[in-house]
């Protein structure tokens, strides 16, 4: 078994333990479980980084070019943003809703082919690293926003107990964290779209080809643009705001998984 595969299996295991720990914390109200869950996520992130590095060394290039590699990087981006937001807002319980998403994405990666293929000419570009890196941070931020929005939507059930009031921020704080995560993701999604357009210009001579992936990135961008407009100008808050943020992430997932599997286009690299 090579290092990359061993690291991948260990990453999946650690994230599974992390998700299970957060579940125990939430269901059985065991505070210690969340502390251990966070440690598993942190350890998982470290091993995950080793896995990505090993993949890059084995492939001899940045591991960002097929479904397996992007799912691996996507999950890494979500965990990175999760760890930053937990640190910044002292909100470890966020893991209750983010860890399952991470586990699902890495589970999707596990189902993909791990074969290493040489890059087709269109993918041999320096813009690939910029474009996909921006997507990873954007998707990671949106993943965290989704997790916080889910906490918000379950808030009414959670707030009834003293346990929840101790471990979960109030609604205004949750709303603010969602907004912060969405605005970070929006900035990086814009960068992702712009760098992709520059790359398309170099490769095919046009910025925009209305490829399904491009179109769905635009749809995702518009959904979050509506969210930000309504929040900044119309005072969108609370439940509606959380539903919007969650819907945006559904668009993100469709852009990533749905478009690649259901709609053929320039991004469907086989």
């Amino acid at each position: 078994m090579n290092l990359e595969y061993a690291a991948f299996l260990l990453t999946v295991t650690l994230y599974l333990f992390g998700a299970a720990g957060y579940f125990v914390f939430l269901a059985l109200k065991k505070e210690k479980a969340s502390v251990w869950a966070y440690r598993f996520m942190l350890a998982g992130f470290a091993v995950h980084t080793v896995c990505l590095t090993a993949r890059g060394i084995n492939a001899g290039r940045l591991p960002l070019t097929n479904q397996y590699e992007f799912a691996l990087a996507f999950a890494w981006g979500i965990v990175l943003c999760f760890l930053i937001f937990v640190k910044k807002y002292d909100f470890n319980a966020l893991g209750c809703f983010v860890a399952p998403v991470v586990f699902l994405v890495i589970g999707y990666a596990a189902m993909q082919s791990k074969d290493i293929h040489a890059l087709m000419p269109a993918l041999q570009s320096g813009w690939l690293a910029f474009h996909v890196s921006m997507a990873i941070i954007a998707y990671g931020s949106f993943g965290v926003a989704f997790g916080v929005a889910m906490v918000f939507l379950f808030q009414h059930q959670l707030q009834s107990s003293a346990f929840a009031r101790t471990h979960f921020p109030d609604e205004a704080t949750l709303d603010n964290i969602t907004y912060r995560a969405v605005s970070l993701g929006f900035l990086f999604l814009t960068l992702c779209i712009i760098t992709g357009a520059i790359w398309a210009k170099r490769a095919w001579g046009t910025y925009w080809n209305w490829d399904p992936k491009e179109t769905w990135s635009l749809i995702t961008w518009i959904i979050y643009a509506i969210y930000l407009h309504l929040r900044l100008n119309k005072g969108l808050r609370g439940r509606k705001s959380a539903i919007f943020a969650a819907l945006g992430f559904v668009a993100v997932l469709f852009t990533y998984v749905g478009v690649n599997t259901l709609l053929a286009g320039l991004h469907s690299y086989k």
Partner: protein
Amino acid sequence: MEQRTGNKFIRFFVSMKFSMLLLAVIIGVCIAGSLVSSPKSYFGSWWVRAIAAVLCVNLILCSVQRLPVSIANYRRAKSKRIGAFGTWLCHLGMLLVIVSFVAGDMLSEDYTVYGIPGSIQPVADTGLWLRIDDFDVQLRDDFTVEQYVADLTVLDSNGQESSGQASVNHPMSAFGYDLFQDSTGWANTIEIYKDGTFQSSDIVCVGETAYPGDRPSLQVYFNKFYPDFAVDESGSPYSSTPLLNNPRSLFTVYYNGEIKGMDYAVMEVPVRVNEYDFIFRDPTEYTLIVIRRDPTEILVGIAALIMLAGIFLSFYWRPVYGEEAAL
């Protein structure tokens, strides 16, 4: 009364409600567009452009309406004052992106030329000629493509020429145009003989048709080319490698629109259909070069930068006010 109705209409047109409605409509248009088989013609249709035009007008009016507020906030702010223009710049950038994209669509020149090495062809009515000096499909050991490389020379009517190389991700520039290595395929020389007498010789690409000089009702359609012809267990033909080890060409002969025969031609070996002999030879890879000029390129870049700056200022450089709040 009419003026009041007009004002009401303009107020609705610049309202947040209308903007959000418009964005929701665009989402619907985009979802439908991602499902159609020809998205370029769908998104280029008059009604999609009309929606884009309405969005532009909405953005202009919102920007005009927002500017005094941004200026006032700029004056009131104690620090990070430039942040007051964040949302305004974001809208301006978005507007410029749409305008330059549509203008680019209308003003850009777009031509395609394809041919085998050694061929020289006019580039539409530009007064330029494109000579394909060489074309190489660089293969790896596992026969996957490493790169497509075309050596090209562009000649103008004054006898000036500009030579260079175009490969994927590395376009060549000449006489204000960018030349892109777009795609490739196989071509054969097809010679046609009637009762042993030479009739015609044409270089024909896969998907094209050859005609004997004396009878245009007879056509030879070049269906497919197999550089290394082989047959699998189910009897289906395929090419086992991209190398010219055992080249065969699949062709169909039509007479007055009816199929008269279909066969695999071995190179240099005549294939007889009635009194005609067809000889396929010289299999060569042709290259398809896309030649483009987009005068809006700089505008697109500036627009994207303005939009990015606007988003950054809106979220991460918000003005700090004293006791007075922002407007």
